[in-house]
């Protein structure tokens, strides 16, 4: 019996250590930055991963940094990051609201419910969420959404112009409407250039870990390359690291997403990254802070597309030679999308139902 009781004591100690660690690694409130009274207080809650994820969170952070640089001591900021699997998103938003932060960002669609709950309790605080919009038209929530389909259309066109096998591929992360928007735009871009090109689409899964499974990304991309694709576009977060690895191994091309991934990829994979579909979260965050400081915060959905400079394809020192011959064509397509001549579908259903017909009847 003595041993048993001792055992429980150990289990409790172990659990305490675990919970201590969990708390220790999550909460990192930024130290107060100045003593004089700031004019604006802006808070941001990243999604799991936080600063340093070389992707979504880092871009949001870049937007905040830009604002910080411009407004200096007039802007007080605080950055928080959820622990482990992120159940404390709502608690962190609430903490910032209680501390009197006037504009609070939630980075990512996983904040949808949390931001809706907190916004209702703090009607005088402004909130902004990236990539989603809570239901109920809350008067103090701005929804910063991107027209990923427009950017994806351009990289789809780039793939179609570059393919030699008339087959291209797509690897999605979690199968949700948001990622299908990438697929639809990409497929439409390919179809617009040449309807005969085949697009092979695969998804890594149906849960959120589909964004962090590079082993699966590698296998999916390898399967697509082996099935004849010579360019694969991924919209799958960290899963895409496996896509790049497969591309380098097969000596085929890949297209990155969100950030300009040529810049962060390892050197041996760089030559195989054709371009990236940039989703400029930094622009959205910065613009929102700027508008807020000018008293022009707007609630409700706001879309950042090609016209607003919210999405684009990337050109850098590594891919400029590969891209130079097709750039004029891509820029022409960009103008057509901005002018409304091309309406890029937002779902595969829209692509199949309306886009194909529209392209067919325009005699393209």
């Amino acid at each position: 019996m003595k041993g048993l009781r001792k055992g429980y004591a150990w289990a409790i100690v172990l659990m305490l250590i675990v919970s201590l660690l969990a708390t220790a690694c999550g909460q990192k409130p930024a130290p107060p930055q100045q003593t004089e009274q700031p004019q604006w207080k802006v808070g941001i809650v990243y999604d799991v991963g936080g600063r340093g994820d070389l992707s979504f969170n880092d871009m949001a952070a870049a937007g905040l940094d830009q604002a910080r640089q411009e407004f200096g001591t007039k802007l007080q900021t605080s950055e928080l990051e959820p622990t482990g699997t992120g159940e404390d998103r709502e608690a962190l938003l609430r903490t910032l609201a209680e501390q009197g932060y006037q504009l609070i960002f939630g980075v990512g669609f996983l904040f949808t419910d949390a931001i809706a709950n907190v916004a209702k309790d703090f009607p005088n605080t402004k909130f902004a969420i990236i990539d989603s919009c809570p239901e109920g038209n809350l008067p103090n929530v701005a929804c910063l959404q991107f027209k990923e389909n427009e950017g994806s259309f351009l990289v789809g066109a780039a793939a179609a112009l570059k393919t030699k096998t008339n087959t291209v591929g797509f690897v999605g992360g979690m199968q949700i409407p948001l990622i299908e928007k990438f697929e639809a735009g990409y497929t439409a871009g390919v179809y617009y250039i040449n309807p005969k090109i085949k697009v092979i689409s695969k998804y890594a899964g149906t849960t959120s870990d589909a964004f962090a499974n590079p082993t699966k990304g590698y296998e999916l991309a390898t399967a697509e390359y082996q099935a004849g694709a010579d360019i694969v576009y991924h919209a799958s977060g960290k899963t895409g690291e496996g896509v790049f690895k497969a591309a380098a191994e097969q000596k085929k091309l890949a297209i990155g997403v969100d950030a300009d991934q040529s810049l962060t990829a390892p050197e041996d994979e760089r030559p195989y990254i054709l371009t990236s579909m940039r989703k400029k979260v930094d622009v959205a965050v910065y613009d929102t802070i700027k508008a807020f400081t000018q008293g022009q915060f707007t609630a409700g959905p706001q879309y950042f597309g090609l016209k607003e400079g919210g999405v684009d394809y990337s050109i850098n020192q590594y891919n400029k030679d590969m891209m130079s011959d097709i750039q004029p064509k891509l820029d022409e397509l960009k103008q057509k999308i901005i002018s409304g001549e091309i309406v890029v579908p937002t779902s595969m259903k829209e692509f199949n139902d309306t886009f194909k017909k529209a392209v067919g009847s325009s005699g393209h």
Partner: protein
Amino acid sequence: MHPDLILAAGVSSPAIADAVASAIRLTTPLLLTALGAVFTERGGVVNIGLEGMMIFGAFWSAWGAYTYGPLAGLAIGAVAGAIMALVHAIVSVTFRVDQIVSGVAINTLAYGLVRVASQALFHSATTSPSVPSLPRIDVPVLDQIPALQPLMANLSPLIVFAFVLVPVSWWVLNRTVFGLRLRSVGENPLAADTLGINVVLMRYSGVLISGLLAGLAGGYLAVEQTSMYVEGMTAGRGFVALAAMIFGNWTPVGAMFASLLFGLADSLSIRVTIPHVPYQFVNSLPYILTIVVLAGAVGHARAPAADGVPYERSGE
């Protein structure tokens, strides 16, 4: 160039070889972990902390490979897995805490520790920089046969190691004194103790071997498969490996076939498109298969008699 495998249409043989090659890559981490699981369970200690040991191995091998190169990285990953296993052994063998509770704690602990370490060493809680992999090898002679080429060329040495380890494990368990003692401790620790076998030492060995191999499996994922560490990259493989070991009836060869079955199911779900069947269904096939197989097979399987039971000398 050959078309994507489509079940309704004909299937070409290079497509099959490619799919099998993919299956073997997906099998390897499961196999390594499952072989380790055989040792710990035959010694009488249930280890559901394998997932955590894999996570730990994946992170530390990436750090090791980044700092000292791939071979050292994999060794460091294996040792890291063994360190986690040591915690499990201390808690569940020496202090006789419920083995399931300890295993769950290991999984949570590994997750938290890796985050802290990643933040400290890589300045990113979720990813490492890119790390080098071991040079790829070709199996001589066999890699010249075109149909086998995808299976025999450009392999990670760890794949070969994992499969060579199957007969080695069988031999160790069934033909050595150590194996006999380990098994006796898992079946009847009291009798083994009476005969002068050090029960605690045997059980520690079993648990540590499982940690080494789970850590190595994590290293395979990070260093060999992905060339970087990404948080959550183990994606439940530790649990699947545990299921494979049980389905394989607590034997190395059985564990290999079960791991291959899961690897093949995974590979097919990636490559096979069945017209008019929802994609999600194809994707969930490996998991459905796992459940069906477990429900069907576990009835016939027999666990070591003292598996999961802490051993306490009477009169202490």
